[in-house]
């Protein structure tokens, strides 16, 4: 054949030399030098300047010569090399192995070309080899990668020759070598950039072509990496796991033990949720109380999370697995912080001190409120109030405070016992302890809440009366049917009484407004304190700690993209690039993997809040407790 003589001529030019390895007579013998590049194929469908990309794993850069096995992606004109098959081998067995891998992983794995790692002294070369290989494993383009041992000079060619029938019809393309770390690419998960809000999610997959295909290929070819060099199989492969499969005893034990433990805990949790859903708790007073207490909300949230973690169904997607892991770490951290709090409380015997201090504090608050009311009943800030209304409102609120103080004193013997049990609940988690604190604050300041409601209702009534009488003053009326203001002709006596009432209400306005202002400010103060506690609870609930830890310790697992570095380049040699993983920034990690919370955020904007305050409508900051956002 013509190629043999050309091959012998090439030996002197320092082309690929053979690796001395005797093999069985029917096995494919050692490689021959590469044939020279023929002219451009006149019938070829490729343009002459096209650059092909070859993704080569860094672990195979020091492997012995052999065949390149991987996947060819024609849309990107790139070849992803997954492993190297060493000599000697039997082509039929290689084809069988590739067919098995293809079936197991749904990835089109084929033989892409040859890999040659020669020593400095060129050895004896054998003929027919490339032609034979090219005929057995027909793949176009056929890659020939070559590296000198101990140096950094690489050479690679990709030929499109059509076979022995038309030896002149072969073209060559330029090849760009891109090295990648196979283990990191296998384990990492690409996060495409966030789509613009007005696009659907399906559109972005079309543009995330090239590199996502490489990651996908490597991730799905696990079946190819199962055999290592200690196996006695017919084919010897070289890849990232060829020194031995990676595994950890602890992980395997945990996986084995996870099954029965999950089953047991799932049964326990289903019992608890069945008990909590029973009829007794749905009766009216209890269900009302449960819906108002944030502790019950938090406990329910935790129960749901635990049910999800310990459910016996396997996680379907990596996102679900991350969510489960985040929930588990969040629950564990919560319980750890709660136990720390508990030990701190018991060490300093703070519960006893707290119980002793609670009654005097409540007394002090009530005293301050009484002083405030006395001040309002006099001439507060130099304003002159309407004496009669002032006295009525002041006495009414003072009596209320007196009732409240009596109630607190009634409860005082049981306070320490209650607090001790409440402190014990901190072992369920810090978030539960904080929710209980928030509820205790709400209960202790219940009288402030009542005052706020009385003041707001009075003020609201007054404002509505004023607006309606003001319309009457101008000769207009609110049309309920049409929801607009219409003109109306009133009788003289209607006008007279209306104007009188309007005057009375206007002159009583400052007094009511002042009481309303004072109690609204107090209420807002209490709401702000409760809001801070809820914010802290939400933070502990929703922070994805496992993802953040993964980003800190194994940054290649969460990839935002890739980055390239150009390696040493000599003219005449192919361009070599190193592809590294660009990790996801911390803000995007938190944004992507944030856990869903109860969603107890106030839905008001500042404008609507001010409007409600002005018109005296009641504000319920936690009204949305019943709705869950996912």
């Amino acid at each position: 054949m013509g190629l043999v003589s050309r091959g012998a001529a090439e030996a002197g030019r320092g082309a690929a030399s053979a690796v001395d390895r005797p093999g069985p007579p029917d096995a494919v013998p050692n490689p021959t030098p590469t044939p020279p590049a023929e002219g451009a194929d006149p019938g070829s469908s490729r343009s002459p300047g096209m650059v092909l990309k070859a993704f080569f794993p860094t672990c195979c850069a020091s492997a012995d010569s052999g065949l390149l096995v991987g996947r060819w992606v024609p849309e990107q004109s790139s070849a992803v090399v997954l492993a190297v098959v060493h000599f000697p081998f039997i082509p039929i067995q290689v084809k069988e192995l590739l067919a098995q891998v293809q079936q197991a992983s749904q990835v089109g794995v084929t033989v892409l070309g040859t890999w040659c790692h020669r020593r400095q002294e060129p050895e004896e070369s054998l003929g027919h080899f490339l032609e034979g290989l090219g005929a057995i494993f027909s793949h176009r383009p056929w890659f020939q990668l070559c590296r000198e041992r101990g140096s950094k000079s690489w050479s690679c060619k990709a030929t499109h020759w059509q076979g022995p029938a038309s030896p002149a019809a072969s073209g060559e393309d330029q090849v760009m070598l891109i090295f990648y770390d196979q283990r990191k690419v296998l384990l990492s998960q690409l996060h495409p950039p966030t789509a613009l809000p007005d696009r659907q999610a399906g559109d972005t997959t079309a543009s995330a072509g090239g590199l996502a295909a490489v990651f996908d290929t490597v991730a799905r070819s696990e079946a190819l990496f199962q055999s290592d060099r200690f196996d006695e199989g017919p084919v010897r492969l070289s890849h990232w796991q060829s020194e031995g499969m990676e595994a950890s005893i602890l992980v395997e034990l945990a996986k084995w033990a996870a099954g029965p433990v999950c089953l047991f805990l799932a049964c326990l949790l289903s019992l608890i949720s069945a008990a909590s859903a029973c009829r007794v708790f749905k009766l009216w007073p209890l269900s009302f109380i449960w819906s108002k207490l944030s502790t019950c909300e938090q406990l329910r949230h935790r129960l749901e999370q635990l049910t999800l973690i310990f459910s016996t169904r396997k996680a379907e997607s990596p996102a679900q697995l991350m969510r489960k892991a985040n929930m588990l770490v969040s629950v564990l951290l919560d319980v750890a912080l709660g136990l720390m709090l508990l030990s701190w409380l018991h060490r300093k015997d703070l519960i006893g001190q707290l119980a002793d201090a609670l009654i005097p504090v409540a007394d002090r608050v009530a005293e301050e409120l009484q002083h405030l009311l006395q001040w309002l009943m006099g001439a507060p800030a130099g304003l002159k109030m309407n004496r009669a209304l002032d006295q009525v409102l002041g006495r009414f609120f003072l009596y209320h405070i007196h009732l409240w103080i009596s109630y607190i004193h009634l409860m005082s013997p049981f306070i320490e016992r209650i607090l001790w049990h409440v402190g014990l609940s901190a072992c369920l988690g810090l978030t539960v302890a904080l929710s209980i604190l928030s509820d205790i604050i709400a209960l202790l300041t219940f009288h402030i809440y009542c005052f706020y409601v009385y003041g707001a209702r009075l003020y609201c009534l007054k404002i509505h009366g004023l607006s309606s009488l003001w319309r009457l003053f101008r000769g207009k009326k609110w049309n309920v049917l049409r929801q607009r203001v219409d003109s109306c002709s009133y009788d003289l006596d209607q006008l007279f009484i209306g104007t009188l009432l309007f005057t009375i209400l206007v002159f009583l306005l400052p007094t009511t407004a002042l009481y309303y202002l004072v109690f609204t400010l107090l209420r807002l103060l209490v709401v702000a304190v409760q809001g801070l506690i809820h914010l802290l609870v939400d933070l502990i609930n929703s922070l994805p700690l496992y993802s953040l830890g993964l980003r800190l310790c194994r940054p290649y697992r969460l990839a935002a993209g890739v980055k390239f570095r150009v390696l040493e380049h000599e003219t005449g040699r192919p361009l070599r690039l190193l592809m590294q993983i660009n990790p996801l920034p911390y803000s995007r990690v938190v944004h992507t993997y944030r856990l869903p919370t109860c969603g107890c955020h106030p839905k008001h904007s500042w404008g609507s809040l001010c409007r409600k305050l002005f018109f005296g409508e009641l504000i319920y900051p936690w009204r949305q407790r019943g709705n869950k956002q996912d």
Partner: protein
Amino acid sequence: MEDEQSFSDICGGRLALQRRFYSPSCLEFCLSCPRITLRSLTAVTCTVWLAAYGLFTLCENTMILSAAIFITLLGLLGYLHFVKIDHETLLIIDSLGIQMTSSYASGKESTTFIEMGQVNDVVINEAIYMQKVIYYLCILLKDPVEPHGISQVVPLFQSAKPRLDCLIEVYRSCQDILAHQKATSTSP
């Protein structure tokens, strides 16, 4: 092959443009920003410490002085790590994509890579920046829905802010590579 030219940015500071030509399909531009000078560093430190000393003479509290030292140190570290960019690099690889790297004074590097399939074009745009009208180089990204539309504009060399002559150099080389890439990809 490497060559270096000196340009100026929009404020008149000196910039150095290094061009590395690896192959006809791979080109790298490295634009170095003016370094942080000892004069400005000394000026800022002296101002902060004088202000702290002034407060100290008013309040007679030594915590102010130690707080001033802390603030200066932390401020300097934060500035070097998060704000001061030493050089910006643009790497164009035919048929692979365009990569922008910003290296900060503390050594931190932040990289963005845009695949060639998403790049529509590289153009020079005008923008109104404070009271000036400046030119900047940007990459236009393709719209996944509309084939000839543009979904996003990614500006380049945002902290170096070179003038038009420097931008034209970079623009010409980018257009060569993009044209070559379009020619090889559209032919069947």
